[in-house]
């Protein structure tokens, strides 16, 4: 803890203190309101700008700022061409699910995505499976965020990995536990703004250090012609383009942490505004940071392997291109990406346990749960899940980035057809959803464990295909949903 760059640490400490201050303010302001609705969805009061920023910030992880641009450094413009498919993520999830989920949540008094799944398919078992899948895969994703953020912190500031983990890891657990969803949304907004400022700052210094845009690009055209070819001389096969359209494009509409944003906004004007703002911001971030990764060739003259792999490209670039007193500001962006993803997942994971499992169980058993107890349990659950992931991250597992992608794909395969067909197809039923969610999760995990692929495509292609087949089989052979349920989900004149 003694050999680090103190000037790099200070901006981080101030930023983290500001995040905690926001959550305390939010908790204080909303002390009198309905706790469950307030803590887990911010009382459905988000405006368009905050909705856009929180959706983007939760979606953009630390790998978007570290691993992604590192790959762009290695592969070139093909990587940005692939990454830009993420511009669909915000308008798709809000355009397809935003209003439907909002209408249903108000009719059903639903607070979580699992509430809606339970009501649609009339199954506590399916709801429990959905909650389990959320907690399981979220823990994987959160661990990756903790590890990625702490490694970046250590590489750039010179302080230990553990010090980084304590500084931002504990901060995010504390502010999420205290402030709930509303604090998550507001801090996410700050994080998204900081991410954009960080990108501009880094780009500026990379251009300066590399002798200007003209100079860097002229050298790249001569020395790295593969960067200017869409397949990067074989480094970017078509299979990556195809699977990325599924993994970070189309299938992201079913990520529970994105869909839950549909429950949280105030009115449709806000939703419309968020679709536009979100698309602008997510494109700016993706193109901006990955382009910076390519321009980092002006700062780093070797290959990614010379700097310890693609994950070290951006940290090394920050250290070499930026003055020591601004290093702290530069890494707030990637760390903001990390903490905003963690907080977004943490609050949904907590709601899965408390709202979807415990409170539902108590209601069925006619057990009275006092508001004070709900409050205590909700805050405790958030803190315990966050604390558990923090402990796992203290001894980081190897292949952490693979775990992150595994979790991302797992969530998408589990929820994509269940939500899409469940909310838009009358014939969708309990058996179809059960077969789909349980069957495809097992198949997806098994193919991942065995390393089995078809045409060298990511296992999400197998998972999502099996999921559809199971859903259709179940829906055609299973019992139809009852009329009362259909009347709620598909009202007719």
């Amino acid at each position, binding site marked *: 803890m003694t050999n680090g760059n103190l000037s790099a640490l200070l901006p981080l400490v101030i930023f983290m203190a500001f995040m905690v201050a926001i959550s305390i303010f939010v908790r204080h302001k909303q002390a009198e*309101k*309905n706790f469950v*609705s*307030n803590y887990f969805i911010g*009382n*459905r*009061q988000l405006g368009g700008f905050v909705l856009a920023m929180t959706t983007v910030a939760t979606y953009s992880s630390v790998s978007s700022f570290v691993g992604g641009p590192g790959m762009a450094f290695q592969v070139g*413009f093909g990587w*940005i*061409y692939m990454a*830009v*498919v993420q*511009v*669909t993520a*915000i*308008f*798709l999830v809000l*355009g*397809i*699910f935003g*209003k*439907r989920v*909002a*209408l249903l*949540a*108000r*009719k059903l*008094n639903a607070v979580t995505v699992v509430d809606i799944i339970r009501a649609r398919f009339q199954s506590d078992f399916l709801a429990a499976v959905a909650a389990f899948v959320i907690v399981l895969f979220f823990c994987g994703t959160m661990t990756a965020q903790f590890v990625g953020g702490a490694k970046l912190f250590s590489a750039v500031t010179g302080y230990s990995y553990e010090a980084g983990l304590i500084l931002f890891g504990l901060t995010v657990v504390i502010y999420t536990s205290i402030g709930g969803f509303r604090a998550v949304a507001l801090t996410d907004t700050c994080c998204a703004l900081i991410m954009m400022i960080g990108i501009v700052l880094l780009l500026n210094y990379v251009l300066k250090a590399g002798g200007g*845009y*003209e100079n860097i*690009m*002229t050298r790249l*055209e001569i020395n790295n012609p593969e960067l*200017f*070819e*869409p397949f990067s001389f074989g480094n970017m096969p078509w299979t990556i383009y195809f699977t990325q*359209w599924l993994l970070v494009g*189309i299938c992201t509409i079913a990520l529970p942490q994105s869909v839950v944003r549909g429950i949280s906004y*105030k*009115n*449709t*004007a806000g*939703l*419309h*505004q968020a*679709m*536009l703002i*979100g*698309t*602008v911001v997510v*494109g*700016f971030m*993706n*193109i901006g940071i990955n*382009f910076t990764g390519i321009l980092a060739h002006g700062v780093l003259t070797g290959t990614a392997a010379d700097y310890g792999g693609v994950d070290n490209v951006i940290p090394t670039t920050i250290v070499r291109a930026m003055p020591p007193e601004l290093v702290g500001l530069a890494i707030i962006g990637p760390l903001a990406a990390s903490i905003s993803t963690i907080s977004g997942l943490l609050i949904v994971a907590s709601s899965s346990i408390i709202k979807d499992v415990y409170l539902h169980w108590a209601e069925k058993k006619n057990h009275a749960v006092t508001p004070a107890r709900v409050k205590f349990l909700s805050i405790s659950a958030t803190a315990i899940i966050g604390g558990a992931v923090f402990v796992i991250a203290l001894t980081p597992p190897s292949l952490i980035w693979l775990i992150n992608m595994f979790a991302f794909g797992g969530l998408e395969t589990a929820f994509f057809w269940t939500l899409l067909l469940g909310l*838009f197809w009358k014939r969708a039923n309990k058996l179809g959803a059960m077969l789909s969610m349980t069957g495809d999760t097992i198949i997806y995990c098994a193919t991942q464990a065995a390393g089995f692929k078809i045409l060298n495509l990511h296992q999400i292609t197998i998972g999502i295909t099996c999921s559809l087949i199971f859903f259709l089989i179940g829906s055609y052979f299973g019992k139809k949903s009852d009329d009362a349920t259909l009347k709620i989900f*598909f*009202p*007719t*004149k």
Partner: protein
Amino acid sequence: MKKFNTDAEKFSLVRREAIYTGLALVGLIIFWLIAGFGTASSEIKIFHLPLWAVLGTVGVWLVAIVISAILSKILFKDADLGGDDDD
């Protein structure tokens, strides 16, 4: 502004908007293919970048913004979501 009074009208609107969004996605995928792979053999360069790299990245982003604007400003309609959110 058209009023959507009944649940049936609101859900019908939402279904229609979801279809518009799906069609917008298909349109963007086609543009992405043509803008990137479709122009990869071109010798044209803009600011030292091959045409495919400009159209396939910034071009796709701009088209996505236009699509979002058309969806949110023209095709999507405001509707009362119902419920009592004030607690």
